[in-house]
């Protein structure tokens, strides 16, 4: 779109207009798809959030317009804010470890070594597994009696290290974050690895010649040059992590008590356990705000990179 020139108006305008029209025609199937499966549901959700919709209204078809009442109810609900807090801790905890471990692994795999490619591919399995499968696996592995992790902890330390991770409200969230870190590390590693490959090796060679040690080269060459990639990875991670539902639901179902009722679980329960559709839609849209913000930032960055290049 940018950089259109008008050197010879008559001929190029008609050509570009024709091209633009053809473009619209070609993108029509995509637009219809987006409209049907993205815009319509989203708008329907907005409509629902503005009406008092429960099971009766859903069936009757007529529901009362209540303005922002559903939003007010949601915001006044302490459980909602509890869920927001949990979601923030879950996201921050997941991102911190996913990113640092992913970065470390990316540095490891940046240099070729025997079987490196194989290990890298194997690591990807974590990311490719459906969350229901990884969630179930981790639930078993964190089992107090027969789980692998507790057996390992007891083997290397005193028996007291063995712990019922998922049924203790104090540690359940940590257990879920642990599983989600495992799921997210490969994604971080892969993107960061691509970033590492874009750094000109001559920079490292030149610095080494100047007497910089490994730490100095990492601190003053790798880290600054990786900043744009890192921000992108973290933004994408934020979008993915904030809305994680399946993994948490399979591992703990939101419990014990409400120790792992992150926002997505909270919204699910409002919808399908309590059948308060209006309120659920409002909470769902509020849940969308954070990823939406991160998404907008990400798109702006992409555009910025495009202009810089």
């Amino acid at each position, binding site marked *: 779109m940018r950089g259109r020139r008008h050197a010879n108006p008559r001929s190029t305008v008609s050509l570009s207009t024709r091209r633009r029209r053809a473009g619209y025609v070609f993108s029509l199937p995509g637009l219809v798809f987006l409209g049907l499966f993205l815009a319509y*549901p989203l708008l329907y959700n907005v409509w629902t959030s503005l009406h008092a919709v429960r099971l009766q209204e859903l069936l009757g078809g007529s529901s009362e317009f209540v303005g922002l009442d559903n939003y007010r109810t949601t915001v006044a609900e302490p459980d909602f804010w509890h869920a927001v807090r949990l979601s923030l801790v879950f996201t921050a905890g997941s991102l911190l470890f996913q990113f640092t471990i992913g970065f470390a692994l990316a540095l490891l795999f940046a240099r070729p070594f025997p079987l490196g490619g194989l290990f890298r591919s194997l690591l990807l399995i974590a990311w490719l597994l459906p969350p229901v499968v990884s969630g179930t696996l981790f639930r078993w592995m964190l089992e107090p009696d027969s789980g692998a992790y507790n057996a390992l902890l007891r083997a290397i330390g005193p028996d007291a290290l063995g712990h019922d991770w998922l049924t203790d409200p104090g540690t359940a969230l940590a257990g879920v974050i642990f599983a989600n870190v495992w799921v997210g590390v490969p994604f971080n590693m892969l993107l960061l690895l691509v970033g590492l490959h874009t750094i000109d090796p001559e920079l490292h060679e030149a610095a080494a010649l100047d007497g910089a040690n490994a730490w100095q080269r990492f601190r003053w060459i790798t880290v600054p040059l990786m900043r744009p990639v890192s921000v992108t990875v973290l933004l994408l991670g934020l979008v993915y992590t904030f809305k994680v539902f399946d993994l948490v639901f399979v591992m703990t179902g939101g419990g014990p008590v409400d120790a792992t009722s992150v926002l997505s679980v909270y919204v699910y329960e409002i919808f399908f356990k309590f059948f308060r559709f209006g309120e659920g839609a409002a909470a769902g849209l509020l849940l969308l705000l954070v990823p939406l913000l991160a998404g907008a930032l990400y798109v702006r960055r992409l555009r910025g990179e495009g202009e810089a290049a």
Partner: protein
Amino acid sequence: MSYPVDRRGFLRAAGVGAAGLGLGSALTACGSDKKSGTVTLTWWDYFTLDNFQPAFTRLIKDIEAQVPGVRIERRTFPFADLERQITLGAVSGDLPDIAIVDNVAMNSLAGSGLLADLTERVEEWGEADQYYKGPWDGCRVDGKNLGIPNNSNCLALYYNTGMLAAAGVEPPTTWDQLTVTAQRLTSGDRFGLAMSAIRTEEGVFQFLPFLWQAGGDLDTFATYGATALAYLDDLVAKGSLSEQCVGWTQQDVNTRFVNGRAAMQINGPWQLPTIKQKDVEYGVVALPRDQESATCLGGENWVVMASSDHQDKAWEVLEYTQRPSVLVPYLVAVGNLPARKDLADAGTWASDPALRLFLSQLPVARPRQYGPGYADAAQAVAEAEQSVLTGTAAPSAVAKSTATKIDKALEQR
């Protein structure tokens, strides 16, 4: 590449859209074939396990042969999906004619206007007094019959005969005896008692008997909820009940029992086939009583959808299934108990001592009949139990705050 819509929101709404597209074909699919006069009834249930299939195949074959002009089209859903599927079906108009639903689902379905009122037909039929009070009341909402019982079950106390003999104790009949017995039976990695306190309806199903036995109900939770919670808290404090039970389903509980990791368990008759396959010597007694004897009613109800164009035929089918000659083989084949008193001496439950015990408890089995706010109230109860058993809250304090939540939930209409 941006993702402005959360995936579930998308799926949910896409489902609504897709269901809408499917509406046309669904409407044509369930209708009557005018020429032959045969009516096709769609039927939904959640009996998906393989061992249930012969019973349903036979029942449907019998219906199609004996009820004139009826063909059945059965569709099964996973247990957790049926109620949600009916809800989604209410939006898209894709609903069955008849369904077999969990008795606790009557709370949410009753207020929705989704279920056909069967009161007049039931009165004309005149067999209401043949049913146990609990199961029958569980089908009645505001004086109207919105269904009839399909089968019933309830909770009782299983015990490992060998372990009790070795410890020299008798099966407990009161709360105090349960405390002492459970403690005597606890040793090493074996717990005296196992039960489910998970954060779903299963956990609530297992907790409510304690509330009722204490003499209370959901509307007196501040007092009697505290008593029940304190009692269970004490079992955990004494080490007789593992606090891990907040993560156990009833299936998990049974696994512990058959593996000898628990000497007693609270569970239902549907576990009997699994237990009988294992090498466990067991007995079953009524749940220990405190102020009252009580257990929680489980099982399923038949319902007819208000949207059905063939309610008369649907009722004919339901009535047919309740004939003793049809009902007994069906219940024996699915391993469930009858909700009818007149069948007490008919099937396997007449000879099997364990089944007989469960059947004997049906008169004190209470339905969870609290209205549309029940799901919210149940969640509050589950969280109260979990917070006490995991040691994050004191019974009396949490009972008081939970009572407020329950009152608020049950007020809504």
